[in-house]
């Protein structure tokens, strides 16, 4: 983060507001899907079709229709915004009377109940996979990175290239044999398969980043710890982990996000509905239901909530860590 004053970055002659305007326009478009997701999650299909853009006004209209044979039918619909401040307009000539009333039930909280019931179990599975996976990924990566960073052991060059080569190797051809390997290990259709493959896949990147970081730590700390008779595990616990909290945090967030968003592997591995993670669960829902978009959107929103919580707590780490980690490469 630069501390230099920004006066000269933008030209003196140039005004600042056009930039603000363009940036804001972009950001608004960028946030538009988020807004739609939230707003539609409170609607049913009918009120979405009447009024797709804005949230519904808190009024409902009861319309009494007179059919040709003299029977009356009563229908309730959500009011339009044009009716919210005036009187109700009948939606077609057959409507005899239209009655507007204040009504909070136009917001379909049911959508959220339904969404939660739909994907709650999937979220539980995903949290289990993501948390366990992230924990083991980082634990093993810290151990591995310590091995590379501490001493130049015989063979460590060979091991290092074995890891680095994988960074260049495309993983796309692996998925078919991986499937049959997991079948042979009878890990198909288990959550542990996802965890273990995720942990294996995360090793290369995390060891790469952590090794560079641990090598930059002051050597005296390790020597002092060694003088005191600390074992290697003790050195990791008392020197490495406290000193590299921020980078471990950033890597943990990235690992968690990766596992949260993964859907290709679960799609191939999982068969039982009870084991579905969010990825497969959402794909399954996408195919299964006659689309009540309100319910779908509520489900989508609920799927984002754990990430929102993480984001709220770690925003600084997120924004800073992503930028800082990028510079180090």
């Amino acid at each position, binding site marked *: 983060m630069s501390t230099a004053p920004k*006066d000269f970055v933008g030209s003196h002659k140039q005004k600042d507001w056009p930039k603000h305007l363009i940036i804001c326009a972009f950001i608004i478009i*960028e946030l538009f899907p988020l807004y739609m997701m939230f707003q539609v999650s409170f609607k049913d299909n009918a009120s979405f079709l009447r009024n797709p853009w804005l949230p519904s006004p808190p009024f409902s209209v009861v319309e009494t229709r007179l059919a040709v044979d003299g029977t009356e039918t009563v229908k309730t619909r959500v009011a339009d915004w044009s009716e919210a401040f005036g009187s109700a307009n009948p939606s077609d000539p057959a409507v005899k009377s239209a009655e507007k009333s204040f009504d909070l039930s136009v917001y379909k909280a049911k959508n959220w109940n339904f969404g939660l019931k739909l994907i709650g179990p999937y979220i539980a599975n995903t949290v289990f996979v993501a948390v366990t996976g992230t924990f083991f990924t980082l634990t093993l990566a810290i151990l591995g990175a310590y091995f590379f960073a501490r*001493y*130049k052991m015989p063979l460590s060059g060979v091991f290092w290239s074995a890891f680095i080569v994988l960074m*260049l190797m495309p993983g796309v051809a692996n998925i078919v044999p991986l*499937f049959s390997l997991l079948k042979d290990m009878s890990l198909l259709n288990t959550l542990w398969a996802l965890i273990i493959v995720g942990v*294996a896949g995360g090793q290369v990147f995390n060891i790469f980043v952590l090794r560079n970081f641990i090598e930059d730590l002051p050597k005296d700390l390790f020597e002092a710890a060694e003088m005191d008779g600390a074992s290697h595990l003790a050195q990791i616990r008392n020197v490495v982990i406290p000193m590299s909290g921020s980078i471990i945090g950033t890597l943990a967030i990235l690992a968690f996000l990766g596992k949260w968003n993964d859907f290709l592997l679960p799609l191939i591995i999982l068969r039982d509905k009870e084991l579905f993670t969010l990825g497969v669960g959402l794909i399954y829902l996408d195919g299964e239901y006659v689309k009540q978009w309100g319910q779908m959107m509520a489900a989508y929103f609920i799927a984002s909530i754990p990430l929102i919580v993480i984001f709220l707590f770690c925003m600084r780490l997120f924004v800073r860590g992503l930028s800082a980690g990028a510079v180090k490469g």
Partner: protein
Amino acid sequence: MAFPISRQKALREWKLYFLIVPSLLLVCTFSYFPAASAIYHSFFDWAGGETKQLIGLDNFKRAFGDQVLWGSFKTVSILIVFNLFKMIPSIAMAVMIHRVKSDRWQYFYRVMLVVPMIVPSLVTLFIWKFFFDPNMGVLNKILDFTGIKSLLVSLDQVFGWGLFFENAPIGWLSQPDLILPSLFIWGFPWIGAVGVLIYLAGLQSIGQEIYEAAELDGVGPFKKFLYIELPLILTQVRLSLVLLVIGTLQGYGLQLLLLGEAGGAGGRGMVPGLWMYNKAFVAGEFGYACAVGMILFVFILMLTFLNNKYVRVDK
């Protein structure tokens, strides 16, 4: 750098090897073994079970005559061009945020950029699928609302595309000829939060005196970008370019979810990765899928080498 260590000391520290063994074992089992197995099985007629039959190079011969496979390579090259174009808004955004004078606003914009990241990428994908829906979808509603649709319809009448009609909703993902345009529109305005933050980090290393000098010489905003800002983020731009090309070449999740296993109407959205997936998990031809995977693998490996040779990414 790690300490060099004498042989005797290394022998005494043999326990250190225990630290690397778990990672090494995992990587060997789940990365190296499948890769070797893919090479091995590409020479077999194999349906994923116990029985397999050695058929030599037949899988590869078949692949070279496979129209769908080569069509999919054509599609993926078009997608790569699209994605290169889609890098521009992120760079522009980073430069604009960087040029904003107040630090506080800069931080605010960064946060606002990261906010969409809280939506799982899969959910973003489904929201876009909803946008593309012909009857309920937001895209068609926007086009109706702004009158762009009638423009498209009149253009259609002039050029005879046969895609847009007055009274019918536009079938973005169901018309074969609209699938590539849909994939182009997908993700508008194409700003990647991670990309912007990485570029911003690069821009931040520009010293103030460079701007002062440029100011005195009367350098305009665009030239400033060309001569000061672009050279400084070139490393990051190259890196994301390389990652993007390789990622697009081997990616197929987007196509699988948006268009289905067969690559959408007329197979227009078929990419090599999806064809491999399709052959393995839909048609059950695992051996052939391995061969397709190997061909794709060779392409990506060649690109990686070319890139290491000509597009240097300095750390």
